[in-house]
């Protein structure tokens, strides 16, 4: 065994070759550590190839090869540095590298022994190392190692964080040039041992191997040097005994060690990437608690609706509430929800006026001192913007209530239909479902899909969460679009644009599944969030292009009652609509959620329905909106156990009994 090791060393050329190979293996690995850490492998390879013309010129002129190589290396580095101001760095490297390499081959081809010489330059000729060559290698390697040790901490800092290096006013450019110079010298030193074609392997593979095994730069460098030296020696012996070229043999040993440590590091679980961030625990499953229409409807018998007109909005609403105060039972209530209607944050006419809410809160606080939540979720933009714009922000101080954005609430699922009558699950705000006294406060408005929007629709649509309400960029476009003439809005491009621009993830938008389906969906979803008290603030209504862009109707009335369907049906008739023409009111009646037959409603208050009646100009598309009746919907309704169709409610001004 010892003979096997010592045997080759009896030849002086083997001894010199071994010395040069060990030195080169070590110095390549040390400098290669920076190359790996800075991702300069391609640059190193290019530099190695680019020294070929310098070697060729020195060879032809009989100068020392190292001098020529070094000159060419520095020239190439400078050329790359200049070119990368004009083209990308990797492109610059590619241009210089291939151009210089081609020039080197052409120069060498003028020599008679072209093939032999080229092979030596490309793949090294470690056994041809002369005593003079060895001395040059020792000087170059020693110089590189010395400079590396001297500037190690600065070189590592520039490699790791150039920003800090600049902040600390280190000469970053000089350090970069130093590294390039060291790299050029290393490549020249390695030329005779492994040749230009394979020097990059000696630069990159040992440090990459060490990187897999240790976690600090210093140990990585030391281990890389060990691997590099060992590969050089082992490669040389392999070359001697197996009669294979020495350069490729060294590179193959390097590669084998890399593969072994790759396998080893897998086995020992060394992480190369940061551990994944901790995944937050999923929220606890939500409890579902639906109020059913029948349970929350209150006492049986005929509904009594208050209809008032006073000197101000607040007094009018307050008076309406006082007329039906005996029906409001808050004794066992744990949490009251007051639901105004905002639609968008910046259009007061479309929104519930704060004074109407004040009247409701005043009424409540005289009877109830538990928690009250004033909650709404706008369809577009930020609910808090609406709270601010509409003057709601002082309510918490005035009445000890809590303001809440329903769009950010936890949710519970509610099942409705999509446009193909498949079940569709939407999310409603949990606070609305779990409040055990829900009050809907809204203005009467015409609507672009369901003829009118009143207390029931206000509660349902507000409860559907709209997590994407704030899609800042598109909101202005969306609003602009809504102001377009109706005929234009109905063109296919406009419809497509509307769908693209409407807020993402909005369960409000998802409710709209075509005119037949939206009406039944409203009734189905209403069962989960049925209001206990409905307040219509008709001080100012909206006609025409409601619910957002209609015209004001100075009406100066208010309605209130504990049967929201009765309140909505009566209000609709006062606005000039037949309640049974309004699809969702029809379905609510069929589902037994309340009383919609006007002759069964008792009206109390300041004025008679006949006096209060003020026909609203319908939405321009009202004709289409009336086409909600569909065979499919009727069948679905039967399956849900709805009541059989009631006799047609007569059209025209309804005069409920008990009118004043």
């Amino acid at each position, binding site marked *: 065994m010892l003979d096997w090791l010592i045997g080759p060393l009896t030849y002086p050329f083997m001894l010199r070759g071994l010395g040069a190979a060990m030195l080169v293996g070590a110095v390549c690995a040390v400098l290669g550590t920076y190359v790996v*850490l800075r991702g300069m492998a391609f640059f190193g390879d290019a530099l190695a190839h680019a020294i070929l013309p310098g070697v060729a010129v020195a060879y032809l002129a009989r100068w020392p090869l190292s001098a020529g190589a070094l000159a060419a290396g520095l020239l190439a580095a400078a050329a790359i540095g200049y070119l990368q101001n004009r083209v990308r760095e990797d492109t610059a490297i590619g241009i210089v590298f291939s151009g210089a390499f081609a020039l080197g081959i052409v120069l060498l081809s003028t020599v008679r022994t072209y093939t032999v010489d080229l092979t030596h330059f490309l793949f090294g000729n470690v056994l041809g190392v002369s005593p003079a060559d060895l001395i040059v290698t020792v000087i170059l390697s020693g110089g590189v190692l010395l400079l590396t040790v*001297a*500037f190690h*901490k*600065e070189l*590592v*800092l520039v*490699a*790791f*964080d150039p*920003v*800090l290096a*600049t*902040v*600390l*006013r*280190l000469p970053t450019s000089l350090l970069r040039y130093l590294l390039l110079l060291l790299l050029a010298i290393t490549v020249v030193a390695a030329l005779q041992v492994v040749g230009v074609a394979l020097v990059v392997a000696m630069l990159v593979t040992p440090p990459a191997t060490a*990187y897999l095994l*240790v*976690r*600090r*730069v210093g140990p*990585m460098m030391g281990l890389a040097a060990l691997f590099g030296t060992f590969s050089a020696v082992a490669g040389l012996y392999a070359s001697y005994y197996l009669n294979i070229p020495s350069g490729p043999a060294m590179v193959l040993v390097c590669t084998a060690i890399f593969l072994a440590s790759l396998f080893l590091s897998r086995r020992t679980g060394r*992480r*190369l*990437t*940061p*551990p994944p*961030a*901790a995944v937050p625990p999923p929220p606890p499953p939500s409890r579902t608690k639906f109020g059913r229409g029948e349970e929350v409807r209150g006492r049986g018998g005929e509904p009594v609706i208050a209809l008032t007109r006073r000197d101000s909005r607040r007094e009018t609403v307050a008076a309406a509430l006082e007329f039906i105060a005996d029906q409001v039972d808050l004794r066992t209530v744990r949490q009251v929800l007051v639901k105004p209607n905002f639609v968008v944050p910046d259009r007061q006419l479309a929104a519930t006026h704060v004074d109407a809410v004040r009247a409701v809160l005043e009424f409540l606080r005289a009877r109830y001192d538990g928690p009250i939540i004033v909650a709404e979720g706008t369809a577009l933009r*930020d609910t*808090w*913007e609406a709270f*601010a*714009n509409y003057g709601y*922000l*002082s309510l918490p101080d005035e009445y000890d209530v809590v303001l809440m*954005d329903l769009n950010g609430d936890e949710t519970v699922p509610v099942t409705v239909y999509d446009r193909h009558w498949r079940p569709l699950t939407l999310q409603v705000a949990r606070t609305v479902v779990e409040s055990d006294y829900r009050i809907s406060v809204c203005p009467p408005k015409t609507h672009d899909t369901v003829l009118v929007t009143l207390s029931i629709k206000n509660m349902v649509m507000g409860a559907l969460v709209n997590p994407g309400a*704030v899609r800042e960029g598109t909101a202005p476009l969306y609003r602009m679009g809504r102001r377009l003439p109706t005929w234009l809005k109905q063109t296919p491009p406009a419809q497509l644009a509307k769908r693209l621009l409407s807020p993402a993830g909005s369960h409000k938008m998802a409710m709209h599944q075509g005119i037949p389906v939206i009406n039944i969906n409203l009734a189905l979803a209403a069962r989960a969030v049925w209001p206990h008290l409905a307040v219509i603030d008709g001080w100012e209504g909206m006609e025409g292009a409601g619910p957002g862009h209609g015209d004001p109707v100075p009406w100066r009335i208010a309605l209130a009652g504990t049967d929201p369907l009765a309140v909505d049906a009566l209000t609709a008739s006062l606005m000039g609509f037949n309640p049974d023409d309004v699809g969702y009111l029809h379905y609510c009646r069929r589902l037994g959620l309340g009383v919609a037959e006007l002759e069964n409603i008792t009206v109390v208050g300041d004025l008679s329905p006949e006096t209060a009646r003020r026909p609203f100009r319908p939405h321009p598309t009202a004709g289409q909106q009336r086409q909600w009746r569909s065979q499919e919907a009727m069948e679905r309704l039967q399956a849900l156990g709805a009541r059989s169709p009631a006799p047609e409610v007569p059209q025209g001004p309804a005069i409920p009994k008990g009118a004043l």
Partner: protein
Amino acid sequence: MADRCEALRVEHVTVAYNGRVALRDATFTVLGGERVAVVGPNGAGKSTLFKAIVGLLPLESGRVEVFGCGSHRWEPASIGYVPQREDVDLAFPVTVGDVVMMGRVRHIGWLRRPSRRDREAVRWALDQVGLAELIHRPLGELSGGQVQRAFIARALAQEAPLLLMDEPFTGVDVASEEAILHLLDRLRERQVTVLLATHDLQMAAEWADRVLLLNGEVVAYGPPAEALRPDALQRAYGGQMTLWEDERGILVLGEGHCSGGRRCWIGSSGR
């Protein structure tokens, strides 16, 4: 305090970034030991200002003067800078201690190795950010907030009298946020001048001695109650923010302006 010296003077500084003027004619002075919150919308020039002060971006015009307030000469290490998001390779084979030691490079000096004094400074800095026990941990094994704290520790290890922190609370966990806030209080005791860029107007109003409100230029500069007036905020933020003012102060509404959520009071009596 009348005897306070100037720590930083920025005079008519204009900085262009990718050919576009990102900060125009900025002038302000910071006194030693002061805490300055730099606020403004995205793209207002907060990061640009910091980069210009530390020399990462060239000045188109104007000048920046940094005075080693308390020490006699301006040393290369006298600005600590914690960039917004460290654009570094977390797989780089360094430990937390190695990273912090990098802040000491100028103290150590050329051709020298770290002394006992340097190692003590690294320990102290890691102690300040609550990472002392992680000194031998590879950087790649830290959480995002811990990485941020390690880079703050590196700036501390510089022992700089002027510290610039760009959005240090962005993307950090609660523990890291508390550690950083606690640290800021202790820096005050050590008379370190701190400039902190933040989105959080509430934090700016409550924490800072002075607020620098930017929007491509200096919109307002002064104590929070003077700089964070509705008109100035409106000029800086335009439509990105909704304001409501009453006797309690100014209520700010909108995404990202408040630490607690979508809204906060920044008035003096509104807390």
